[in-house]
Every structure is written in structure tokens, then in C-alpha cells.
């Protein structure tokens, strides 16, 4: 390669790392910390062989396989707790690392280009490929650090059966998984000409990879092998330690990156390879209202998330049928179930699923409020405020949109799940049950909206705190039980206090309380927003 093309890359690497240093450190601490904490807690959870067998049976049911990957043979869960850990944690850890990589690459490619930073840099004696090359180096470097920290950290926990090779392999699955999605994002950054479009395509790819793997893992292994996430769950880590998924991941990343670099070298700055459409010369009536305009700006995001959540719901719904059969054939599980009470395993699974899916639905809902912050930073709220539109009207429209979205997402989730279950199950669960168990999370989502509005209303600089709280809720929901968090700590997560349906009783007092909290938060947030300076 011509060296002038990548002149100055070293300097740019430093600049990119500097720009993202806090965010990257937070991700590193989060991912490595949770992984190690959970790994060390497994030793004390399933003590007896009986417990371990029960665990194995639960984990091998199709719903779990769809959600977390194929796992191991039942016997292998007895060999080392590493297998339990890997089956429960691996896939979602890879996804977390992938999300980190997508955000990092998305913002140090297209965001920097959109804001004109790359233009300034390119006017310096710096090669045409340097910025992209630097960004790739950074994302590679960060993923390498994750590999090493987790690899070494896991080994240092001294868990029986976790060898140095296997712990490094575990780290490498995370690192290469992140690197692939970072590379794919770098490629999409050449196609789309906005950072939103780039990240949207990349997250779309992640969701599709997850769905293909889910369907493939349950039914058809060949299909699962199309998806990079399908490779991640096939290393048989801590037992056989296959390295081929790592090699093939690196190979794929390399190929994708070569394409990305090539496209980057031949394209104009600020342009992309996806076609642009010719637009309207006048506005349709609905976008001429404040709410209509705000909706229009976010329409693509709302549609995309609705489809994604519907698809996830449908994927899990489809598994419910398989699950019924699996449990019907399994005496041991039936014995276990009878202890739980009147609720069928599908219903219990539904409960767990809604817990996770409501958390996922919170992401786009929070993003809607945060969009107002980005509008302010980009000096676009001044268009409202230099005209006769009040702050209540603008923030109110954003809040209303977020509330409407929360309902939409939970409804499409319920709908997708129920429709798929309907076609797959002999004795389908009722739509009412599904909708109820989804919508019960509405007050929790509204509290998330409330907190976001509150922070944004007073100190817009620190809105990312909401993501810390979100991450906390996620950790509580996912591994709170395993890490033996005390109850008060779990109850700090608003998702935890919501009654789990079906199964628990609807506790009206708690719901009203949560609702009241969300309203109070909103009120205070609106108050702060009215009083504070608007930057632009």
C-alpha cells in the first residue's frame, strides 16, 4: 500500500483514544468487571450434581438455546462451572462488546465526518485513509485489551477447570466478536452518509446476526454458521477449546476492513454509496406541527426499533412451541415444575423474557429524549425558540413521543411473541396474558423517561448518567440474583419492583407509586428546563 495514504495515523490514534477515553474506560470496567464478578460467583451457586443436572436441563431447553446459544452436553456442565458461566454469559457479553465497538467506530467515522472534524484533519498533511485506519487500530486495540483483561482475569480467579488457554479463548471470543462488528460498522460508514444511518445499519446487522443464530441454534446448525454470533457460541470453550471461530472471525474482519478501506479511498468526503432520493419542495401538513416534526425526525428510528423488537418477540414466541414439547418429554423437569406452582414453564419463561425485553425497549425510548439534547447541541432548537413555541411545548412533544413509543414497543413485542406462539403452540397462551405481562412494564419505562428528562432539564452535560443507571438495571435483571445483590440494591432498579406477570400478583400500590415517581420526575425536569439557558 502507498504509505502516504496512511500518513499521520499514529497521531490520529491518540486523538481518537483521547476523545473517547472516559467512555471506553467505562465500557472496559463494566464488561470486564461484570464478567469476572459473575464467573467467581458461579462456584457457590450449583453445588450438588443434582443441581447441576437441573441447571443443564433448563439451559438446554429450546428457549434458552434460542436466547443464549446451544451450550454443552449435559455431562459437561458437571466438569467445570466454566461451562455454566460460558453458556449464560458468553453471548450477551459478545453483544455488549459488539455494541461498544459499533458506537466507537460509528462516532469516530461518520460523526466526526458530519461535524467537519475529518475535513479539518484531511486538510493537514494526513493520508486519505489515515482516519479510518486510526479508528480501526483503536477498535482493534480496545478489543485486544478486553481479550487480555478477561483472559488473564478469569485465569487468576483460579476456578477449577479454567485453564489459561481456555480463559484466553473466552476473552478472544469477546474481543473478536467486538472487532467483527467494529469492522462491519467501518464498512457501513462508507455506504451511509450519516452517523445515524451507519449505526442503524450496524445495529440492524447485529440483530439479524442474533436472530439467524437463534433460529439456527434451535433448528438448523448450518444456518447458525452464517452468523458471526453463531461462531462465538461454538468454541466449546472450557471443554474442547476450538480456536477456529476466532480465526474465521479475524479473517472475516480483515476482508470487511479491506473493502471498507477501499471504498473509503475512492469516495468523496461527506458522501456515501447508498443512493439519495430527490425530496419534496413543500412540507406536508402533518410535519408542520411541533409534534409532527419531532416525530418525523425520529421516524426511521421508531420504525426500525419496532421491527427489531417485533422480530425478537416473534423469535422467542416461535420457540415457545418447541419448549412445550421439550418439557413434555422430560420427567425430571416436570417434577421440578410442579414445585413452582400453577404456572406453566412457558408462562415462567414469558416472565423472564418480558423482563429483558422491557429493558431493551427502554433504549429507544431514552434515545428519543436525548435526541432533544443533540438538537440543542446542533443549534436546531433555536429554530423553535426564536419563534413562538414554548419550552413546554417542545419538551412536552418529545416526552409524549417517548411515551407513545414505549406503548408501541411493548405492544409490538407482545404481538410478535403471541403471533409466533399462536402458529407454533398446540395450546397457545392468550393474547391478554402476553399483553398484560408486557404492558405492566410501562410505568418502569416512564420512570426512565422521567429520569432522563430530569437530568436533561437541569444539567444536560451529564445526561449519559442515565445510561449508567440503565446499565445498573440491566446488570440487576441479568445477574443480580447470581451476584447475590441485597434486596434494597435490586430495588433501586425500577424494573425489579414491577410485578412479574403472569406469576406474581398485580400490586396496584407499587404500580401507582412507580407511576407517581415518573410524574414527579417529569414535573421537576420540565421545571428545570424552563429555567435554564438554552445553548442553541
Amino acid at each position, binding site marked *: 500500500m502507498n504509505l502516504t495514504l496512511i500518513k499521520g495515523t499514529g497521531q490520529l490514534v491518540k486523538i481518537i483514544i483521547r476523545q473517547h477515553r472516559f467512555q471506553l474506560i467505562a465500557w472496559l470496567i463494566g464488561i470486564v468487571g461484570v464478567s469476572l464478578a459473575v464467573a467467581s460467583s458461579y462456584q457457590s451457586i450449583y453445588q450438588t450434581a443434582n443441581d447441576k443436572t437441573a441447571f443443564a436441563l433448563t439451559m438446554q431447553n429450546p428457549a434458552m438455546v434460542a436466547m443464549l446459544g446451544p451450550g454443552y452436553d449435559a455431562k459437561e456442565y458437571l466438569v467445570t462451572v466454566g461451562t455454566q458461566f460460558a453458556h449464560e454469559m458468553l453471548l450477551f457479553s459478545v453483544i455488549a462488546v459488539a455494541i461498544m465497538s459499533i458506537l466507537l467506530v460509528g462516532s469516530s467515522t461518520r460523526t466526526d465526518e458530519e461535524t467537519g472534524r475529518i475535513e479539518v484533519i484531511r486538510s493537514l498533511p494526513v493520508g486519505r485513509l489515515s482516519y479510518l485506519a486510526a479508528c480501526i487500530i483503536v477498535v482493534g486495540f480496545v478489543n485486544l485489551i478486553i481479550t487480555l483483561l478477561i483472559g488473564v482475569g478469569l485465569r487468576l480467579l483460579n476456578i477449577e477447570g479454567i485453564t489459561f488457554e481456555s480463559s484466553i479463548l473466552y476473552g478472544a471470543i469477546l474481543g473478536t466478536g467486538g472487532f467483527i462488528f467494529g469492522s462491519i460498522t467501518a464498512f457501513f460508514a462508507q455506504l451511509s452518509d450519516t452517523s445515524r444511518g451507519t449505526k442503524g445499519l450496524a445495529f440492524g446487522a447485529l440483530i439479524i446476526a442474533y436472530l439467524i443464530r437463534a433460529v439456527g441454534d434451535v433448528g438448523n446448525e448450518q444456518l447458525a454458521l452464517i452468523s458471526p454470533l453463531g461462531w462465538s457460541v461454538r468454541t466449546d470453550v472450557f471443554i474442547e477449546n476450538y480456536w477456529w471461530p476466532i480465526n474465521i472471525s479475524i479473517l472475516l474482519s480483515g476482508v470487511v476492513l479491506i473493502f471498507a478501506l477501499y471504498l473509503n479511498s475512492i469516495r468523496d468526503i461527506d458522501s456515501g454509496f447508498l443512493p439519495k432520493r430527490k425530496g*419534496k419542495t413543500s*412540507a406536508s401538513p402533518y410535519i408542520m406541527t411541533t409534534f409532527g416534526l419531532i416525530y418525523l425526525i425520529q421516524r426511521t428510528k421508531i420504525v426500525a426499533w419496532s421491527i427489531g423488537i417485533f422480530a425478537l418477540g416473534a423469535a422467542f414466541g416461535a420457540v415457545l412451541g418447541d419448549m412445550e414439547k421439550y418439557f413434555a418429554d422430560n420427567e425430571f423437569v416436570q417434577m421440578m415444575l410442579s414445585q413452582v406452582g400453577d404456572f406453566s414453564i412457558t408462562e415462567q419463561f414469558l416472565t423472564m423474557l418480558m423482563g429483558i425485553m422491557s429493558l431493551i425497549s427502554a433504549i429507544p425510548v431514552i434515545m428519543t429524549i436525548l435526541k432533544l439534547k443533540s438538537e440543542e447541541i446542533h443549534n436546531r432548537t*433555536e429554530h423553535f425558540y426564536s*419563534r413562538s413555541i414554548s419550552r413546554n411545548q417542545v419538551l412536552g412533544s418529545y416526552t409524549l413521543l417517548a411515551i407513545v413509543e414505549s406503548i408501541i414497543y411493548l405492544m409490538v413485542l407482545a404481538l410478535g411473541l403471541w403471533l409466533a406462539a399462536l402458529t407454533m403452540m398446540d395450546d397457545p397462551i392468550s393474547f391478554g396474558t402476553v399483553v398484560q405481562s408486557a404492558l405492566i412494564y410501562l410505568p418502569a419505562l416512564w420512570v426512565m423517561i422521567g429520569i432522563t428528562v430530569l437530568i436533561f432539564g437541569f444539567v444536560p452535560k451529564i445526561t449519559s448518567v442515565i445510561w449508567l443507571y440503565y446499565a445498573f438495571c440491566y446488570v440487576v435483571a441479568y445477574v443480580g440474583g447470581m451476584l447475590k445483590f441485597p434486596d434494597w440494591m435490586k430495588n433501586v432498579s425500577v424494573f425489579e419492583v414491577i410485578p412479574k406477570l403472569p406469576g406474581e400478583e398485580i400490586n396496584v400500590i407499587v404500580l401507582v407509586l412507580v407511576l407517581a415517581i415518573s410524574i414527579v420526575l417529569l414535573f421537576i425536569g420540565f421545571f428545570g428546563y424552563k429555567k435554564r439557558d438554552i445553548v442553541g
Partner: protein
Amino acid sequence: MVNLVEVKGLTKKFGKFTALNNIQMTINEGEIYGFIGPNGAGKSTTIRILLGMLKATSGEVKIFGKDAWKDAVEIHKQIAYVPGDANLWPNLTGGEVIDIFLKMRGNGNKNRRDELIERFNLDPSKKCRAYSKGNRQKIALISAFASEAQFYIFDEPTSGLDPLMERTFQQCVLEVKNEGKSVLLSSHILSEVEKLCEKISIIREGKIIETGTLSEMRHLTRTNLIVKTIKPLPPFETKQGVHNVNYENGEISFQVDSEELDSIIKFISEFGIQKLESSPPTLEDLFLRHYENAKSIASNGGKGQ
């Protein structure tokens, strides 16, 4: 008569930093008011306070006799504002954005919109992300001029416009003035301010250091002279009130303080005047002088940079 804009003792602090310090400003109805000052002087901050987007730390800010912060929404029904760098929604077209802006104020004029699109030579079918800076600026200008406002606020409105479009802008401003409306124009293009504005304020480091009509300001300052004499002039740089003397092709150009004009002309005439050209100071001269003063005060005062 109520003054259109009435600013008294306006101070704005960002944390410890004082961006505006005791600003006074009065804009009368039907007036075009120029607002100039170096980068970071506080022009945009003042305008954002007028628009009720920033809250004054202290002082009184009234537009149409109403409080700029509390009654912002009410006031803005009669205000059209154009920022220096119009950031628009990248996935909407220019035409859509103009319509949205007009609708937001509620009193846009469709015919005027189309006429202005024509005059500013804008293609309204492009997405905003595809517009050049000048074209984005045109969108903001068209939406402003197409709305029926009483008071127009422009913050460096012509940055990025080509000279032809700049002229169109100036015409539009004059049309608006002829309809009896008022304008606040903040600009770095001094010739533009000179051409359009009756009254001018110069702001520096958050303080208004000079306000008045252009001729009032000129009165206080220097006149530019170019002379050619029959007998050679002795060196006269040291004379009271003479500045910036330049010798070129046998001609001498210099500036004289207004109060010394009489004595200097008398002095020169003794050497036989062959040619004498005088021109009033340009706004640029005024501006540079204030700026230079500031610099010398800063360096002499020992405060450093």
C-alpha cells in the same frame, strides 16, 4: 411611544466569566440597528438573551414592552430571527424546512415564500444535508423575510452568501424597513452595516463602547486626507492630531482628528495645495481604532494578554 427594544444594565455571566457587562441598548420602531464587535465580544449572547434562550444574570430586557425571558413565546409571534450558521434537519428538504418555519410562527405568506425562493435562487427540493453553507443560510433568510414580523434579528446573516445574494439580502432589509419594521443586524461586514444601519453600537469584551448614528461617531473621530503640495511639506507627523502618515508617489495620505482639522489645513495651505481629497472615516476605521485602543490599553496597563 414605547421603544421597541429596551435593554438596561444587562449583565450575563457564564459561571465566573462575565460575557456581558452592564449593556444598555435602545432600538426604536422603524430603525435599522447595527451591532458590531470583534469575535467573542458578546453579540450572539446579547441576541440569545433578547430571544429568551439565555437568562440574563441581571438587568432588564424588554421587547415590545414585554419581558424577553418570561414573555418569550408571546414576543416571538412578531420576531423573525436568522442565525449566522443555520443548522437544519439533514433529512428534510429546503422547501419543507421553510414551510415548517413559517407554520411555527403562524403568519407566513405563501406567495411571498415562492417569490423569495425565486429571488434568492434556491432549489427547494434538495435535502438540507446536501446544501452548501450559503444555501442553508438562504433558507433561514427566506423563512424570515416571508414571515410577517415586526422585528427582524440577524446574527451575521450573510456569512457564506455570494455578493449577488448579499445584495438581495440588503434589498430585502430595506423593503422591510420601508414597511416600517425594525431590524437588529449583527455583522462583521462593515460596509453592509454602514450601508444599512442608522444607528450602530460597538461592543467589545461584553461592554458597549460606542453607540450612535454613523455621523455622530464620525464627528468624534478622524477624517482621511490625501494632499499634494507645490512646495515639499516638512515632516509633520509629530503635529498634534495627525495619524498614520503615508508618503506615496509624491502624495501624502494621513488622518486628522476632527478637532485639529482646521489648524492642519491652515498649515498645509502655506505650501501651496495642488490636490486635496478628504473622505469621512469608514466604519472600519472607527472599528479598528477602537480595537487598537483596546490592545494598547491592555499592553500598557500591564495586565498582559
